[in-house]
């Protein structure tokens, strides 16, 4: 009895020494990535939050202003306008890219001649450089010389006057949303197609034997199989589009989504880094809030 316990104790202590060593070794192994994450991700975030409490001076003598920067932002009606614009933009582009991507993926999942070629051609908007396609869109929608107004106004008389669809504050958001969907749906399409191809065809055969029609097959097999895939695509697209700057800004400067508001507020003319940091912080909190609501309430993960 006595000797047994001694033995087990010595095994235990030896085990804990080994465990200790392994732990240390483990820390040693993750140290490089830890250093990178802390210095390149965590430090900037913390420093950004820190800066948002100061009026940042070029000379380096920052002045502590408490939550004045944050107050200035959340009492600015333009800020809330841009939050609304952002939500509308994110909502419609996310839904649009996912739905169009889903439809195209379902279509491309069927067999037809030259399918491989068509599948790769669909990726074109996604892989084309933003600046090139943005200019093409601007030429198309130019109110005086553009092909769109030429057809819609001169030929079809759809409008009573020439309209600058791409720049006017009333209409530019629609063009931006349309552009966002057109530019980014191939990504959703690609992901969904991969998901569709992974579904066991045996499931469909079984369903057919049970007498399922096309819609029922989609409702009870395809959709549940790609449910989490769709959830992730929507989440990713929402995050990306919430922070989207270049597509919107290059296309039309009049759709003031949050990143553009930040740019105009903090970086035009005199740099206002304190305000910029405060906006970034508020934007971050908003985004986290949306994600949490989405994950908990919509996806029920």
């Amino acid at each position, binding site marked *: 009895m006595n000797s047994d316990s001694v033995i087990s104790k010595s095994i235990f202590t030896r085990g804990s020494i080994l465990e200790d060593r392994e732990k240390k070794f483990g820390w040693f192994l993750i140290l490089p990535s830890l250093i990178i994450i802390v210095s390149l991700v965590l430090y900037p975030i913390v420093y950004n939050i820190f800066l948002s409490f100061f009026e940042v001076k*070029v000379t380096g003598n920052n002045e502590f202003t408490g939550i004045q920067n944050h107050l200035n932002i959340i009492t600015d009606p333009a800020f809330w306008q841009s939050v609304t614009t952002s939500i509308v933009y994110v909502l419609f582009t996310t839904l649009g890219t996912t739905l169009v991507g889903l439809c195209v993926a379902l279509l491309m999942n069927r067999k037809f001649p030259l399918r491989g070629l068509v599948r790769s051609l669909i990726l074109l908007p996604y892989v084309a450089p933003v600046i090139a396609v943005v200019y093409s869109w601007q030429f198309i929608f130019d109110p*005086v*010389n553009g092909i769109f107004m030429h057809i819609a106004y001169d030929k079809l008389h759809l409008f009573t006057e020439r309209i600058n669809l*791409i720049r*006017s504050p009333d209409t530019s958001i629609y063009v931006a949303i349309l552009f966002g969907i057109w530019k980014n749906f191939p990504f959703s399409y690609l992901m969904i197609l991969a998901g569709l191809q992974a579904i066991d065809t045996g499931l469909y055969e079984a369903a057919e034997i049970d007498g399922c029609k096309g819609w029922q097959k989609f409702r009870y097999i395809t959709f549940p199989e790609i449910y989490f895939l769709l959830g992730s695509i929507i989440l990713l697209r929402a995050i990306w589009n919430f922070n989207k700057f270049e597509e919107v800004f290059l296309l039309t400067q*009049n759709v003031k989504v949050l990143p553009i508001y930040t740019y105009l507020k903090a*970086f035009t*003319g*005199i740099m206002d880094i304190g305000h910029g940091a405060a906006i970034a912080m508020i934007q971050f909190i908003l985004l986290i809030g949306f994600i949490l609501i989405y994950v908990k309430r919509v996806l029920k993960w």
Partner: protein
Amino acid sequence: MKKSIVLLLLSIFLLSFSSYIFAGGQEETASSEPVELEFWTRQTQSDRMTTIQMLIDTYTAMNPDISIKLVPVDENDMALNMRAASAAGTLPSIIEIDAEIAVALGSEGILDTDASSALLDRVGKDKFFDGALRLFEAKDKGTYYGVPYHGMIQGIWYRADWFKEAGLEPPTTWDAVAKAAEYFYNPEKNIYGILLGTMETESYDEQCFTPIAMSNNAGLFDKDGKLIFNSPEMKEAVEFYARLAKTTPPGPQTWRARDYYLQGRMAMFFYSTYIMDDLAVFEVAMGSLTSDNFEGLKGAEFDPDLVKNTKTATILTNKKDAGFGAVVSMAIPKLNNPDVTEAALDFLNYLYSPNAYITYLHMAVGGMMPVFEGVANTERFLNDPKGVYSKYGAEKIIEITEGLNKIESFGIVEGNRIEAASTIYSKKIIPQMIYKITQEGMDVDKAMAWAEAEMKKLIN
């Protein structure tokens, strides 16, 4: 295995060490203390960069102990980059900046006024046009934030043949401009009255607005620096601007829409002398059209008679005469390094020497006019590579150049420098106000109250 790794490491070490020694040896053979200058130019186009680089190469060949790095910076980013560089302690040695930015940076203490004075002494202060020099005067009279290098004049360019046919007066007064703009505005035929800026992120709006406000005696500040923006005169000017903006092509517009004029779709447009070569020379105009928007579209043909049929009104009159122009200077940031400053002064002095100066100015025919007397009438200046100036004739060129003496600006009131005007300019408050009125349909009083509140925030 281990051995081979050790050998590999050793050989890498030896190689790098020997190259280090080699490099060190090379350095010693060169001159004792080479000075390195960084020159931020706002000429970002590659052909202009090549010309400036050629001037630099010529200079450094004569001065082997100075090396110069040329950095192109877009004019809209200049202020931002300068502040970032100042915060980071990596200021360039020479910058090419316009008056508004020079004053904004100068008032923050980033620019070296002593160096500017030294440069003015070397080049000869009396040679400069007073009007151009005045734009760079610091708060302390007689000191300057930068030294004028080239300038452009803005005016209303108009289709003289259309005006003649319609029996209209040239657009030199408010009445004449408004009457003509409304007369020619015919959206059904895709023809528009006048182009002025209505985009909220473009300085072009304020450049169009300034002569309109100034000609109505409406300033931003009084001579003691008190904000007097919300005045009846200013409201008249804003309303007049909004009235003209109704005759522009649809939607928010900026200077790029000048192409509509070249296509014969517009009667008038606010523009600087930069347009001279587009109007006069076929290849240039075609390049401008195709590189922007309109290759192959109807109306893209060049009208060879356009230069003959285009006239310019550089002064606008209502209650008084006002002109608008922009002068670009060479400025030296505060560096605390006398060697670098001295080298920068020497290089700039070279850039003011006649041959280098005219070579530089010929990079943008029309857009870069000389800022001192005795250049515009020289054979060499009038004989530009594209043959543009000869199409206008020496007399017209000299007349335009002398307009640089009559530039009005919100930042100078009765000879006093109001630095806050530059801050307002760089924060684009007036363009935002114009956008709100003309594009979002905001009431003039409300938009002006908004602008005034924003200006007050900046001043305090």
